């Protein structure tokens, strides 16, 4: 019989006490360290040793923070008296976070504009951000020594700072740092292998390796990828994207319909609006069977055929994953994804190429309706504004001058691998294919008019593009919805009228503000800006032109909803 094991109770007790003591000591140490760090951080924010310029943004893409930091470091070398910190916030949180900061008067000095209504709607913008029109007409001193040294700051950016302009406020509230454009990325190795395999089967026409010059060549490459998938790797798809095909459709619209659009441009301002398209449709000048319009849909449908079944459900991560893992020949996405895609592709051992969506070439289907290349425009993006609550407004303005100077904008965008916006700033090798080609046509004709028509028609159109429905079925759905008096084109026209009146009423508030401030403090207002805003309001006729046009083109008074 074994004796029961016994132990010294004092030993057990002492071991327990030791554990508790260690735990308590650990807690005290951890608490003390936390306290010190917390106090230090609080002091550094509340009682900084030198002024701190804070910059908030939501760009967490690869390289962006490094790029901004590089500019900040350069700036701090010139201005050692100032500290500059960036505050990256996830896109999902930015809206709530920045709203709280703005309302509580603790907003960062420089904020990326967008996401939140306070940063994008006029009422919020005018309350929380500095108007910049008085500054942007001055010279940017950081362009000294370049051919831009005598050019007003506004004119040193490719978009003339339109990216930061608010029509309703008739002022500039943001300085853009880049622009974006969309392109097709391709896996050079996969395409080469697919083309070699495909061409070895003796097809006609043969697929070409490298970027295609015509839509037909691109589709043949997709055929090659399909053949390669069937024989070698069923996971391979010709094209992936999380952006669907509507962006590609938009590319085809000017190429096919620019001439037609000019014929429908009733006010001769060079822009054929959706309303003008609707008028043309109701007057019987155009419809879905008009060859140029049908060609847009048919050509886009061919792209849909190269994507996975139900491609509209593909998210950004999946599209990226499939492409960088060699499961897709082409990826349709924007300049913002270039660096991440390039880095990942290289880590997987292949190179990427980038090219714009090509139009049908001579002799290819529907090429007889092509009137020219689609043109692109440059719209500034990554726009930063200065919070009115900033205690360092002059320094914030100076930093924005710095980041938009030619040298720094080039450096910033070279590291971020985004397209530079300052005139003369050279894009990185990776960004060169994203340079907008302005040598093209911009007029386009769209038969979408109003949210209700667009929602219904696009859902049906997507079914057609995904191969789930016929063109005739889409056309019938379109006719049903566009002619529906309660949600179709006539409703959309009324909605435009109603919206115009609301917009005019809001514009009136801006004018009333300016008039009152001028009365209270004569000579304080910007009279040129006032006249601009006044003309803009007057030229919109309080929406009465919509009522007149409706009666003129529809033959009866606009029904009010």
């Amino acid at each position, binding site marked *: 019989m074994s004796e029961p094991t016994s132990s010294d109770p004092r030993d057990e007790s002492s071991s327990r006490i030791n554990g508790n003591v260690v735990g308590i000591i650990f807690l005290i140490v951890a608490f003390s360290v936390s306290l010190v760090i917390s106090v230090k951080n609080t002091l550094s924010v509340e009682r900084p040793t030198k002024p701190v310029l804070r910059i908030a943004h939501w760009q967490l893409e690869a390289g962006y923070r490094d790029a901004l930091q590089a500019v900040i470091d350069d700036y701090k070398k010139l201005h050692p008296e100032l500290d500059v910190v960036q505050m990256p916030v996830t896109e999902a949180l930015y809206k709530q976070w920045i709203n709280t900061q703005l309302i509580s008067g603790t907003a960062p000095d420089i904020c990326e504009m967008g996401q939140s209504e306070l940063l994008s709607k006029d009422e919020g913008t005018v309350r929380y951000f500095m108007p910049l029109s008085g500054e942007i007409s001055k010279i940017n001193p950081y362009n000294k020594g370049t051919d831009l040294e005598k050019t007003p700051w506004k004119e040193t950016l490719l978009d003339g700072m339109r990216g930061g302009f608010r029509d309703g406020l008739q002022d500039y509230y943001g300085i853009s740092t880049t622009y974006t454009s969309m392109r097709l990325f391709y896996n050079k190795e996969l395409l080469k292998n697919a083309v070699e395999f495909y061409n070895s089967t003796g097809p006609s026409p043969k697929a070409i390796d490298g970027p295609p010059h015509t839509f037909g060549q691109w589709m043949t490459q997709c055929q090659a990828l399909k053949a390669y998938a069937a024989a070698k790797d069923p996971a391979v798809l010709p094209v992936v994207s999380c952006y669907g095909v509507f962006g590609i459709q938009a590319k085809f619209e000017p190429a096919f319909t*620019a001439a037609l659009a000019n014929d429908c441009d009733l006010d001769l301002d060079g822009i054929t609006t959706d309303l003008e398209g609707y008028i043309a449709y109701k007057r019987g000048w155009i419809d879905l069977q008009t060859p140029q319009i049908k060609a847009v849909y048919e050509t886009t449908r061919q792209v849909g055929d190269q994507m996975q079944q139900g491609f509209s459900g593909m998210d950004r991560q999946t599209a990226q994953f499939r492409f960088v893992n060699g499961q897709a020949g082409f990826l349709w996405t924007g300049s913002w994804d270039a660096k991440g895609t390039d880095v990942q592709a290289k880590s997987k051992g292949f190179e990427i190429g980038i090219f714009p969506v090509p139009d049908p070439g001579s002799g290819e289907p529907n090429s007889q309706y092509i009137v020219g290349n689609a043109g692109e425009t440059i719209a500034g993006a990554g726009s930063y504004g200065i919070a009115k609550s900033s205690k360092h407004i002059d320094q914030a303005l100076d930093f924005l001058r710095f980041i938009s100077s030619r040298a720094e904008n080039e450096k910033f965008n070279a590291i971020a691998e985004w397209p530079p916006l300052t005139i003369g700033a050279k894009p990185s090798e990776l960004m060169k294919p994203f340079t907008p080609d302005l040598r093209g046509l911009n007029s386009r004709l769209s038969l979408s008019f109003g949210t209700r028509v667009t929602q219904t028609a696009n859902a049906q159109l997507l079914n057609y593009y995904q191969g789930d429905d016929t063109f005739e079925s889409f056309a019938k759905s379109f006719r049903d919805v566009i002619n529906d008096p309660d949600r179709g084109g006539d409703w959309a026209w009324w909605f435009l009228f109603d919206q115009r009146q609301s917009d005019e009423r809001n514009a009136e508030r801006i004018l009333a503000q300016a008039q009152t401030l001028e009365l209270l403090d004569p000579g304080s207002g910007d009279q040129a800006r006032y006249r601009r805003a006044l003309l803009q309001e007057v030229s919109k*006729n309080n929406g009465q032109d919509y009522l007149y046009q409706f009666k003129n083109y529809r033959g009866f008074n606009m029904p009010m909803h």
Partner: protein
Amino acid sequence: MAKRAGWLLILLCSTAGLARAEAPADEGRAAIANLDWKTAIRYYEPLAANARPGTPEWTQASFCLAVAEQQFQPASASTIGTAEQLYRAIIDQSGDKRYVARSLMNLGRIAELRDYTGDKIDLATARKFYAQVAEKYDGDPVASEATLREAAAFVMEYDAPDFVLARQGPPLLEKWLAAHPNDTFAAPMWQTAGDAYFMPLEDWKNALRCYEQVDRIGWIDPANSGPWFWRCARIAEKLGETKTAIKYYTKIINEAPNSGKGYASVLALKRLGAPVPNNPLFADPATQPAGKEAGHE
């Protein structure tokens, strides 16, 4: 000594009180600058109520209160009614013509705009107020603004098919401009006249004539002038005024290259056999099928 100290104390208190009295006006002004009409009402209401009618303080506070009531969101018959009463009181009792003129203008704006659901637009009444300002305050910029508003309120009638009222808008502006050729509102006036001739009057020749005047003076919004240049070019082409068309296509390339019509203008100039300005943005156009967009008839 004690008496002197007493007076000094009263003086100090009065100064402090005056400083405090100015603070709400400053706050109210800041609220207007922020388009925060609710806060503006909070500050100006007591100021207007406590000031003696007709004094500069009363005029200023009443006017600011009226503007805040007029612009308050959501507007209602009540807020607009309050604003109207205040403007009328200023017109009747204030001696400050700047505030009286603007009060008349704002009564016109109330008549012209749909301020709330169910509010009726009354262009005839609006025109009467504008005409009154234009007549009484000639020489002041507010008179030019009133003339522009009056003309626009004629055009907004869109009284098809004869346009008896709408037709009165452009001549009103032209008459004013003949008498005030250097008016600071000349460019927006010519542009408004041009727009009216273009639509609804469909008088393209006169539209182009007015736009040419704007071009001579200088476009008021150069950053947005691209669509007007294009309209001028297209109208000129349709009227057979090729030289003018070339001028505007050229202006698009040089002054509004990013308006979306730059390349189309290059094609148009080539089609018209005119020299194409050298703009690197549109270099190497040889591959494009010229003439299919611009001027396609």
